[in-house]
Each structure stands twice: as C-alpha cells, then as structure tokens.
C-alpha cells in the first residue's frame, strides 16, 4: 500500500541550482580528502565542489582515503595524471607534505581545505578554505559556558583521529567545567547509543554531550532519552536529522563549518586562478566557520540539509 504521509511524495521540488556554465576551456581538478566511506560531511564538501565544477566547466576527480599514506599516494597519482589543479585536505600535514610539494614542483596549483591552515602556505599551496578544528571546539566550549554547563562528555567516534581529538581539545580549552572523552564505535549506532547511555548512567552529573558529527548526535539524543538524562546535546556538522532535532530542541546547537563552501570555493578558486590569476583571500586562510546554528535557524536550513548542501 501507499503511505499517505512522508516519503518522496511529500518532497518540495527543489529548484535546480546553477544556471549558466562557463565557456572557458575544460580543466581537470583532483580533490583528495581524508574522508572515510559514506561520511555526510565530506559528501557536502563534494557537492559544493561538484556544483562549482559544473559551473566552471571543470572535470572533478574526487578521491578519498582515511589512511595517511593512502592519501599521500592519491595526491601523487593525481600528479601522475597531470591534472590542472589539486585540492587536498591537510588533516595529517606531515604525511601530506612531500606529496603536496611534489605537486607544486610539477607546476600544479594546489588549494588546501578543511584543517591545516598553518601549513598551507609552507607547503606551497595557493590558498586555504576551512576551519580550524580547535577553533570550532573552542566555540563549543564557550557556548556551553554560556548555557551554564558544568560537566561535558566528548564522543570520539573514531579512535586516534587527529581532527576529532583537536575538537575535543578545543572544547576542553575554553569550557570552564570538566570535559571527559568517551570512545564510541562510529560505524555501530546501536553500540553508540548503548555506550552513551551507560556513560550517562555512570556519571549522572553530566549535563552536556558533545557529538563530533551529526550521526552520532542522533544516537546520543536517543541515549539521553533512554537514560532519562537532562544533558544538553551539542554537535559538530549538520544533517537533516540534526536540523529536525534542533527544531524540537533535542539538540541545543550545532557548529557548522559550512563544508559546502570549502568544496565550492576551492574549485572556484582554482578556476579563477587559471583564468585570472586571482587568489581568494589574498594568500591568507579563508575561514568558512565556525557558525553556531540553533533551533531558530532550523526551519530555514531544513531545505538545504535535505539536499546535502548544508
């Protein structure tokens, strides 16, 4: 039978983004990230890059590897493929150094995105679009102070991931209360839910939960319900579920670093550089965040999160 509610039938027909298309010569740009498989955040980055690529008549080669040596190899492969520009993330700067320098030496313009702004210039990249993980973390800490919270837990969903550790470290730095890290398994949401529920039961005085991505935030919200805790939930990044939960106040606020912009601007930046030798930001890092999103913004954002552009 048919569902009378929800589903595709209830979707607004989203208006097509992008109108015209540049008539400049076709160029090929490789984008190499340290994303894992099927990650919402990186999907948004990629969407931004694709829209810019479509507009600028660019062929975009997106690849990703969450292991340092794998990502470095991908950059070298891009160099071998003689692309016209490379966009790379610097989450593991030391590991990427040699590969990026090789690209620069080969005369390929490089843009860096996401974290690692302090290394961008040193490695010879043209520009950097992103947000420092620790800065974003600090923003969360400050917001929690404002909300009068005393004890927070920070959910690390991938052990040993530098960016996640930096986010928690940032929270710790500005938050006046106590912060404790909790390891959860990012690929196992029932497991996340059970672990967070356990932590909330064991440490009853916890009054804030910091999730480091949107999917973990949903699991944390369920765990909070299960444990009957009053803790407020803060999260990094957005998805439709988090936006819905923002609207219903289940999630207090989210830190958005506007990943769409990182992808979009990097591609556009390379195009501009080729066409006009422009450098966005004049060589200094361009920050795309952190922006704090609360329930008030939720209504307006819903449409975009559904399309995976916010």
């Amino acid at each position, binding site marked *: 039978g048919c569902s009378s509610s929800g589903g595709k039938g209830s979707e607004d027909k989203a208006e097509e983004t992008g109108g015209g298309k540049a008539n400049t010569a076709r160029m090929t740009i490789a984008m190499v990230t340290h994303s894992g498989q099927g990650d919402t955040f990186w999907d948004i980055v990629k969407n931004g890059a694709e829209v810019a690529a479509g507009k600028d008549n660019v062929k975009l080669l997106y690849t990703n590897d969450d292991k340092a040596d794998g990502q470095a190899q991908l950059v070298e492969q891009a160099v071998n493929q003689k692309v016209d520009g490379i966009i790379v993330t610097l989450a593991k700067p030391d590991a990427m150094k040699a590969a990026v320098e090789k690209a620069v030496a080969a005369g390929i313009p490089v843009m860096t995105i996401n974290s690692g702004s302090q290394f961008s210039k040193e490695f010879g990249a043209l520009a950097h679009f992103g947000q420092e993980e620790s800065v974003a973390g600090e923003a969360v800490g400050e917001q929690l102070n404002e909300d009068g919270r005393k004890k927070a837990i920070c959910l690390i969903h991938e052990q040993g991931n530098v960016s996640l550790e930096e986010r928690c470290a940032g929270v710790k730095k500005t938050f006046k209360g106590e912060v404790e890290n909790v390891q959860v398994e990012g690929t196992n949401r*029932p497991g996340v839910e059970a672990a967070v529920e356990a932590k909330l039961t064991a440490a009853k005085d916890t009054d804030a939960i910091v999730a480091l991505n949107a999917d973990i935030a949903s699991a944390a919200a369920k765990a909070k319900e299960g444990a009957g805790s009053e803790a407020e939930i803060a999260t990094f990044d957005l998805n439709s579920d988090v936006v819905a939960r923002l609207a219903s106040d289940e999630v207090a606020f989210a830190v958005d670093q506007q990943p769409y912009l990182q992808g979009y601007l990097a591609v556009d930046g390379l195009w501009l550089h080729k066409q006009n030798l422009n450098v966005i930001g004049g060589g200094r890092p361009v920050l795309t965040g952190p922006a704090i999103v609360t329930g008030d913004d939720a209504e307006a954002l819903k449409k975009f999160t559904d399309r995976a552009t916010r």
Partner: protein
Amino acid sequence: MSTTLTKAAGDERLVHRPLAGRLLSRPELGSVIGAIAVLVFFSATADSFLSSMDTVLYAASTIGIMAVPVALLMIGGEFDLSAGVLVTASALVSSMVSYQLTANVWTGVLVSLLVTLAIGFFNGYLLVRTGLPSFIVTLGTFLMLQGANVGVTKLVDDTVSTKSITDMQGFSSARSVFASTLGIGSWDLKVTILWWIGLVALATWILLRTRAGNWILAVGGGEDAARAVGVPVHRTKIGLYLGVAVGAWISGQHLLFSFGVIQSGEGRGLELHYIAAAVIGGCLLTGGYGSAVGAAVGAMIFGMTKQGIVYAQWDADWFWFFLGAMLLLATLLNAWVRKRAEAAK
C-alpha cells in the same frame, strides 16, 4: 542429553563423573564461566552496572542477533565477512524503497527481506559453484556492498544517508515490532532482546534436533565425509548463508526503525564482532563444533565488557586495550576451567 545409554552406566570402563564435570564439557556451558566472571567483576567495580542490565542486554542483543546465524555458518565450516555491511544494506533497501515509492513502510520491509535473502543466496551460490574459499567470496561481497551501499544511496537519495521515514505510514507499527521498548519493573527492555532469545532457541532447535542441524555439523566437521554419505552439502551451505541474511534483515530493520535514518557507511567492521562472539562462545573457526547458546554467551561477554568499561569509567583512551584484555582473560579463564574439569572429574 548427555546421559549414557542403558547398560553403559555400569560399564567398568567408565569412571564416574559428577554432573558439574559433564556440564562443563558442553561447548556453551564452558563459556558461561567466563561470562559469570565478567559479570561479577563489573558488578563489583562499576556501581550502576547491575542496575543497568537492560542497556547491557541491549548491547549484547544487537551483536547477538547476528552472532547466532554467524555461529551456525561457522559450525558449517564457512565464514561471512559481508555480514556487517549486509545489515546496513538491508536497512538502506527498506528505507529507500518505502521513501521512493511513498509506500507503506511494510512494503519496504518485505522488499528488503527479499533483497537481503538474494544477497545471502548470492554468497552461498558463488561459494558452492566456484569452490573458492568463503573468505575470498565474502570479502568480495563485503567490498562490493560497502561500495554499493554508498553509491546507491547517493544515486537514489542524493546524500550519503537516507531520508527520514519516521512520518510515513506503517512506521509506528514496524517500530513496535523491530525497535520498541518494554518497561519491566525499572528496566527498559528493548524488543531486540526478544528477537535474540527467539533466534537462539530456533538455532538450538535446528542444530540439536533437526536433520538440517545434523547436516550443518557434518559439512563443517568433514565436508568430504558428509558428501560421501549423501548429505546435500551445497544446499546446506546456501541455507546457512540465507540464515545470516535473515539475521542481517532483523538487525537492519531494527537499525532503521530505531533511528529512522540510515547512514550508508555504517556496519563496516561489525562482522568481526559477530565472529568474535561466536568464537568466544566456543565455536570452532574451522567448523564442526559449537552452539547457538555459546554464541549468545559470547555476545553477552562482548556486550558486558563493552558496557562495563564505560560504567567503570576507565580512561577512554584505553578503552580498546581493556576490551581486548578482558575478552582474552574471559576466554582464558573458560579454557582453563574446562581443562581442570576434564582433568579432575
């Protein structure tokens, strides 16, 4: 079960052996010792551990629902690396079908059952047709599914996670079947625990009391010998993969109906947990020996340890270290107790 027949009781070649010793020689009951040790340990070190047994049981059940069919498969001598991502695939299918067709979610649930069974059949059929080792066949499907989960979701839903179906027709009835919570006393028991117990009972029945069970033990313990006496080896193996598919379907539906949204990259790595639970519970990796109850106890040990470490509030950086050490200790203890029991009797 393990009483001897008729006159054998008076056989001078049989040394008397107390009940405890006999019980301990059963694969599942041996591992119970390990489970009890973990339980006692965490009850003593973690305050809220005992009172939060409902969460612990929930964590155990989400592993256990898959550990049971995976254990049967292992007893049948095969391996399934694709089990973890199959759960995600199953959830994705029902979510996408329901959403895209704007149909009652039960339609999606049924289509998902068919698709999941088809993937299980593909695994089994490829295995018996090609004679390749199951490790390589299911590694192939594991990688393919991992890619297809993301690729298809992007293709269909434009994002890497599915659209929410919480507001669709049938959702609440499906949720009550796959993801409801039953309040019993101060405990909030998840319905997955019932599914789990049901699966354990069913698998035990199959293994101990049906012809299929006899065949499973035989193809795992000696495939050539089994074939030689007329056991339908191929059908048995395909059946085992279908069993894993059913488990994945239940787990997948639980995932979908407890969260409403599915992340397409989830599930990777969980296959190892299922296999580990089965092995901790006494299943032989090489096949031919093990039990469903054992797998359930293994899942219980796994679940208790994972939760217990959090309740005990040990340093999170060392979480995996403690988990590994506890699992090893529990299994060692169990092996040691069994050896003692054998020697003492």
